[in-house]
């Protein structure tokens, strides 16, 4: 059997590792009794005695009076106690997602995927889920500000307009800097604003632009657009450091399509995925074949691949091979699947993308897996354009600046000088809804609204539209940026009316489904999306720029290279003040609350540096994480950290790496050559959760290869048969008269993106506990994604496994509870009655899956945990259907019992049975890859029954790939896992 390990220490010396782990756990447990309060058992007894006497006396006083305040006039669509769902659009940091927002009694409390969207389908990402909390952030601006002092909108409007007019009459240049505007109506507002003030220049600025693709496509196809990538249609995917399952362009869409192309539950087809990259990314960890390489090598490898393919096409050139990588397998796979391959690159260097275009053209992929009729509009800026206006700004050629949702002072390599220049301008205005490094330097802050308070629309892809609608009244005295621009143009219309008018004149005539605009509008608003037919441009490929690009391909250089990447949680750092995202462990390193330097294993061994040792990269000190799979001579560090003005949670977390971004040829490339790396000998503690909640090296992950699976679907899962043979019990067979809830997890679909962890956190009021507590092994997430490595540490295979409460029908935790706080339900759920729990933690110790969590401290409403749930505003996000647990209580996954009960109640009232798929726990609902299937195992037509059978009956084992965790313990879990299949070529 393959050996799986979670950290290098475990791999090298499992025994010693186990010992240190146990010791560490023991230490933390010991610390609890002495640490925080120093109360002893006797103090407790004393307090207990007084409490009983006191409570008896208090009981004779009156109870607090609760008020019940009805509506004055009840809105028709609002039913107290029932949630409404509204379709709206998330678009931020270049990421688009069509979402449904759950609104309970006027408060948005959860974001779900919109299943009608052809782009994001039903999926969301961790960022989308967590964006909800940004609405209830204390750091938001409460009113317009002038140099930090509150002013009224009237004062701000008059002053800004006067200043704009003055600068206009003097003919001085004013910049309007925005991220990519994918809203057609906002674009129209901006263009009318620009007409009113001709001295204003509009520039698009993005911290991570896609300039490489845009420039290369302009050369190759004559249009600077990002094409539509069809990962579902591709049979061979070759990605050069494009983290398309994590952060690249449209990850939710790509994850869903990628998983569809590899879904073995419904089909027998599976794409093969090659990944060339330096730092182990989420995408790389899902690849069938991963080839570590230095970022500077990429151009050469691409050139070699092109050469190899040309050879196969029968027109070999004379160019000699530039790198030592063996590309024959990749090339022959691609060549054999001509028209069904997909080669992409995450590089921002136009030459790389030009060669990628040549390869895809040669392979006839253009038009099949890469199409241009619905091109992606989510990223529009180029680094070169930004470089031009930034040069103008820093040279003093600009008199004023208006910033809409951009933060170049933080996320541009020249942020310092940009900041200096902005603070000297005659006029500087920011529309940011909360303070940031750039806004704090502006004279005027005209706070925009959160997207859940705004009207708007979006065109993420040509011809694909969606609408944004407010789901809550504005919380503060803020105003949508578009509305501000309209006011300053002298237009008093509300943005809502403007939007409707724009849709009536521009979009309504382009459809023929509705014959009445109101119908059209209401229906589109309800669905959230609108698909209009498009006629794709006929694009002709030309090899313009290819020759120069190939010339730039040089063999790899020596020396260190630094890879800068967007982290899954924080992306480019805009949401740094979001405690949910800060506490989301990195999918690979499993580190939260910091960025760190991932260093190669071999180098760390040579230097004798271990995790938490500190190195200085070009003078920036960073803690080390020894990363298996990190390419030699490379170091990877996440961007998005090191914010200084973000809010109480985000300030000073990690180091800002944007300053090191490489500005070669006025572009921006996210790797740096020629580094100095020094070992400092210092130590820095990291919140590393990867080795917590260990399952002691038992066969947890099971996997096979596609070839094996094709021959024998049970391959890799042979041990299960053995376990089923030994199925015997002294207990009665558990009976479930009605439902028997079960969850299937397809390890082959799970990409480890972390969306479910945050979705669960939002749904179930899971507290944020901070770095110190995470270090103390108390992370509260009900669903954790275990990451296992196997094979050589230089380039390991990676497996992800979401683990939540397994809802065992023969649960070890249930038997040991002295107060029966965790009994089994008649529907197969392992229940947890918080109010009965006295906190013995016997259940925690007896759970073989380590899925139970203990509230060691009061995490909600406690000043020591100054995150979202410590303010009235932050607590508005709490789900009213889920108890907020207090100190001393055990909690764990409930299969989202509140959702099960809600649908059961609905079905009972409607006198019908529950349909399969009607109930979806939070993790299931928004999983972009559809890795989870939830349902009733008693219903033999349900999807979950087909996949995992009936967990309590060895006669019905389900899909041959199905297995249960630690089945040999006879715990009879209700969660089934489907083996991971790798489509390797060996």
């Amino acid at each position, binding site marked *: 059997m393959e050996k799986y390990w979670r950290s290098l220490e475990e791999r090298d010396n499992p025994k010693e590792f186990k010992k240190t782990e146990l010791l560490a756990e023991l230490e933390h447990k010991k610390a609890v009794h002495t640490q925080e309060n120093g109360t002893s058992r006797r103090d407790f007894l004393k307090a207990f005695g007084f409490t009983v006497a006191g409570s008896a006396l208090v*009981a004779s006083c009156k109870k607090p*009076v*609760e*008020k019940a305040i*009805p509506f004055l006039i009840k809105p028709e669509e609002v039913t107290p106690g029932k949630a409404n769902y509204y379709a709206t659009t998330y678009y931020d940091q270049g990421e688009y997602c069509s979402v449904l927002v759950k609104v309970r009694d006027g408060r948005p409390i959860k974001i779900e995927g919109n299943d009608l969207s052809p782009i994001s389908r039903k999926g969301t990402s961790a960022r989308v889920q967590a964006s909800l909390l940004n609405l209830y952030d204390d750091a938001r601006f409460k009113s317009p500000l002038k140099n930090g002092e509150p002013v009224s909108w009237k004062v701000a409007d008059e002053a800004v307009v006067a200043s704009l007019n003055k600068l206009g009459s003097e003919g001085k240049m004013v910049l309007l800097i925005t991220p990519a505007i994918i809203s057609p109506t906002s674009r129209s507002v901006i263009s009318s604003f620009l007409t009113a003030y001709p001295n204003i220049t509009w520039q698009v600025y993005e911290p991570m632009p896609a300039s490489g693709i845009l420039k290369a496509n302009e050369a190759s196809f004559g249009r600077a657009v990002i094409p539509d990538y069809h990962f579902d249609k591709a049979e061979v995917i070759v990605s050069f450091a494009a983290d398309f399952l994590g952060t690249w362009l449209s990850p939710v869409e790509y994850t869903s399509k990628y998983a569809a192309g590899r879904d073995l539950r419904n089909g027998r087809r599976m794409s093969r995925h090659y990944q060339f990259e330096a730092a182990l990314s989420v995408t790389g960890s899902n690849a069938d074949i991963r080839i570590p390489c230095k970022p500077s090598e990429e151009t050469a490898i691409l050139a070699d691949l092109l050469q190899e393919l040309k050879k196969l096409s029968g027109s070999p050139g004379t160019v000699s091979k530039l790198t030592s990588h063996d590309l024959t397998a990749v090339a022959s796979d691609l060549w054999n699947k001509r028209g069904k391959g997909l080669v992409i690159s995450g590089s921002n260097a136009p030459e790389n993308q030009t060669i990628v275009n040549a390869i895809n053209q040669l392979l006839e992929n253009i038009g099949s897996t890469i199409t241009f009729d619905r091109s992606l509009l989510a990223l529009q800026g180029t680094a070169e354009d930004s470089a031009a206006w930034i040069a103008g700004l820093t040279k003093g050629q600009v008199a004023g600046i208006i910033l809409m949702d951009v933060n170049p002072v933080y996320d541009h390599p020249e942020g310092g000088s940009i900041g200096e220049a902005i603070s000297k301008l005659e006029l500087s205005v920011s529309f940011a809804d909360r303070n940031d490094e750039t806004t704090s330097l502006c004279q005027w802050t005209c706070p925009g609204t959160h997207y859940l308070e705004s009207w708007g629309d979006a065109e993420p892809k040509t011809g694909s539209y969606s609408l944004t609608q407010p789901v809550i009244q504005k919380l503060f005295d803020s105003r949508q940026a578009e509305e501000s621009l309209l006011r300053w143009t002298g237009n008093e219309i509300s943005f809502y009316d403007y939007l409707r008018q724009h849709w009536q004149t521009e979009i309504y005539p382009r459809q023929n489904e509705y014959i009445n605009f109101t119908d059209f509008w209401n229906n589109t608003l309800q669905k959230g999306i609108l698909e209009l037919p498009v006629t794709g441009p006929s694009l002709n490929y030309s090899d313009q720029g290819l020759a120069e690009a190939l010339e730039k391909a040089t063999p790899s250089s020596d020396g260190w290279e630094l890879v800068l990447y967007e982290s899954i949680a924080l992306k480019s750092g805009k949401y740094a003040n979001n405690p949910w995202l800060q506490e989301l462990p990195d999918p690979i390193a499993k580190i939260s609350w910091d960025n760190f330097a991932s260093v190669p294993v071999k180098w760390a061994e040579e230097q004798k540096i271990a995790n938490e040792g500190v190195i200085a990269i070009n003078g920036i000190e960073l803690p080390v994480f020894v990363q298996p799979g990190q390419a030699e001579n490379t170091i990877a560090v996440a961007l998005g950290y090191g914010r200084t003005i973000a809010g109480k949670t985000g300030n000073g977390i990690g180091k800002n790496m944007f300053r090191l971004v490489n500005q070669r040829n006025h572009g921006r490339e996210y790797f740096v050559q020629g580094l100095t790396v020094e070992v400092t000998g210092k130590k820095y503690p990291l919140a590393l959760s990867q080795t917590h909640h260990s399952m002691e090296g038992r066969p947890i992950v099971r996997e096979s290869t596609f070839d094996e699976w094709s021959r024998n679907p049970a391959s890799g899962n042979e041990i299960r048969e053995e376990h089923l043979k030994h199925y015997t019990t002294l207990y009665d067979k558990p009976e479930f008269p*009605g439902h028997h809830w079960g969850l299937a997890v397809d390890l082959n679909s799970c990409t480890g993106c972390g969306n479910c962890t945050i979705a669960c956190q939002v749904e179930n009021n899971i507290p944020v506990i901070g770095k110190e507590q995470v270090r103390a092994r108390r992370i509260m997430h009900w669903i954790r994604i275990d990451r296992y490595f196997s094979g050589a540490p230089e380039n390991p295979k990676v497996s992800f496994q979401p683990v939540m409460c397994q809802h065992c029908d023969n649960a070890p935790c249930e038997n040991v509870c002295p107060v029966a706080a965790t009994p089994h339900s008649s529907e197969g759920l392992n229940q947890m009655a918080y109010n009965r729990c006295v906190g013995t933690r016997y259940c925690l110790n007896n759970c073989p899956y380590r899925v139970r969590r203990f509230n060691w401290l009061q995490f909600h409403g406690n000043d020591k945990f100054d995150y979202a749930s410590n303010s009235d505003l932050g607590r508005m996000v709490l789900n009213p*259907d889920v108890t907020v647990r207090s100190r001393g209580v055990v909690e764990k996954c409930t299969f989202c019992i509140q959702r099960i009960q809600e649908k059961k109640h*609905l079905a009972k009232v409607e006198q019908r049975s529950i349909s399969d798929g009607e109930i979806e726990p939070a993790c299931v609902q928004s999983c972009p890859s559809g890795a989870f299937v939830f349902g009733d195992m008693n219903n033999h037509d349900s999807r979950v029954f087909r996949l995992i059978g009936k967990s309590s009956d060895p006669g019905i084992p389900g899909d041959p790939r199905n297995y249960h965790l630690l089945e040999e313990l006879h715990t009879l879990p209700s969660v089934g896992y489907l083996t991971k299949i790798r489509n390797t070529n060996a």
Partner: protein
Amino acid sequence: MGKRDRISPAPARQGRLLLFLVITVLGSLFLPVKGSAESGSGDYNIRRGERFFKGLLPFDRKHAACASCHNLTPTDTLNWNPSAWEISVKYAGQDFESFRNAVMEPMGGKMAEVHQQFNIEDEDLRHVKAYLDSMATKGPASARPTFFNLMLFLFLGIVLTWALIELIFIRRIRYRFVPVILFLGAFGWQAKMVVEEAIRLGRQQHYAPDQPVKFSHAVHVGEQGIDCMYCHTTADHSKSAGIPPTNLCLNCHVLIREGTHSGRFEIAKIIEAAEKGENLEWIRIHNLPEHVFFSHAVHVGAARLDCNQCHGPVEEMHIMRQHADLSMGWCVNCHRDTRVDFVDNGYYDTYIKLHEQLRAGKIDTIRADHIGANDCMSCHY
């Protein structure tokens, strides 16, 4: 979380009020009463108004004092008439004329009947208005808090301590069983109190607070026969039964402006609230702990329970009160006894085995706890 107000005992204020009352009564007997209102100071007017309101002025009266109908302090019994505090708030912002009209020329109904023979001079009325205005700013007199339980507990504690001291140190009583019995009795009684109070902790059976409007379920349900669901519209499809929005009251009360018991004053509150766009803040009676999930929809919409099975004889309640103790034992017992509409409700088709057993006659009825109503996580999550 709703707002929480605690009624705090205020013995000091009580004492002052008592002193004040004694002085005013004595004062009214001995001090010569000044005839002219204009010459008096504000304070004087208020004091005089108060005395008039309470009927303490020594002059010929053909009618009862204001305070005999309009409570000054909250009472345990139902008084349909508006209290002094309510009147003071209502007329605080209005001029004397409207106040005079309201008192002297009431619009009909019960109030007109009672106020008919009123013969009050404007000057006296002015004083009353001044008194009420000052009350509106100062707030109502607080109810006398009940100390009974606490006092009893402390008294028993003293008895207990004394008995113990007597038994061990003083030994003056010849019959030793007397302090022993006293000790055991006091201790036992205290223990009983503690146990009872501890069980009652957080429960509010028979809780019947004063509401901002004297809304009578007895009138609306009992006399008028209005269906519960007419007002509590969401009881059969939402978790919460729903307190009717104010505009729903106006469906009828846009025409019905006078009640049989309360006259115009109470209904006027609703109309005023609707006109001003202010919310009525009712006092919530049925308070389940926050870790309990209860859905009206399942009990009313699916199980078709009668409302009064839990809420009691609402049609007889002038003041709404909590009928059941809403304890977990009460819930669980009802689940054990209540039959489920197992055959007709399509939802239960899922329970194939139970249906088979039912058909085979192995079981005769399905009760709520057979289908998991008493699972912990049916209510606690």
